[in-house]
């Protein structure tokens, strides 16, 4: 028997939270890196 107050299941939410965190952090890191490289290239050309 499950103790009172314990939420059954919920793994889907756990996976969603960690996936969203990985996607957001990785996406932002890639975005900063890409912008930095583009700015450096632009500076080298000028």
């Amino acid at each position, binding site marked *: 028997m499950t103790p009172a107050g*314990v*939420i059954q299941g919920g793994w889907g939410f756990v996976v969603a*939270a960690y996936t969203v965190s990985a996607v957001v952090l990785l996406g932002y890191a890639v975005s900063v890196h890409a912008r930095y490289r583009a700015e450096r290239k632009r500076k080298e050309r000028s």
Partner: protein
Amino acid sequence: MGDVQRIMYVHVPTAWNAMLALTFAFGCALVSLLKGGWRWDARLEAGMEVGVVLSTLLCIQGAIWAKPTWGVWWDWDPRLTTTAVLVFAFAGILALRRFVDDPVKRAVWSAVATIIAYVDVPIVYFSVRWWNSLHQLQSSPETVSKAFHWPLRINAFGILFLMCGLIGLRTRLALLRLESELAPPLPPPVVQSAPRGAR
């Protein structure tokens, strides 16, 4: 709470680091106003952008946690509302920076706006103590059982190192942009007139 409590190991470290990034931006705003210097303005921009990304992620993680525990994705609870205000305030300052072309005015205005917006950070932190809130009180290694200390610390330091790296790289990007903005304009091309005898 069951399996859902595993969200805490990413939600709480994200919250700590979001507040840390915005505190860093606040410190840079103060130094930028008092001492001046483009480096502090670049650091301010970097800290604020990383802080906004982490705060937005914090709200998304919170919504994913709220649904199975509270039954709703979002509630106008004091902690959630003050955090939403925080995200919009700092995102607004980042937008303001985009609209101001003069780098001197941009540095001063965004530093002042950052100091004003930072007032919300302690309000977010203490909101769960000051008002009746659905949100639980602040979590720390002291409030969770010993078995959970390490997962919480490992994630906290992981996000901290990532945040420091991102702030560093974003600062360099902001400095590169500032350099090209502040560089003196190139002299107009010299039009050489043809020598007299050539006509």
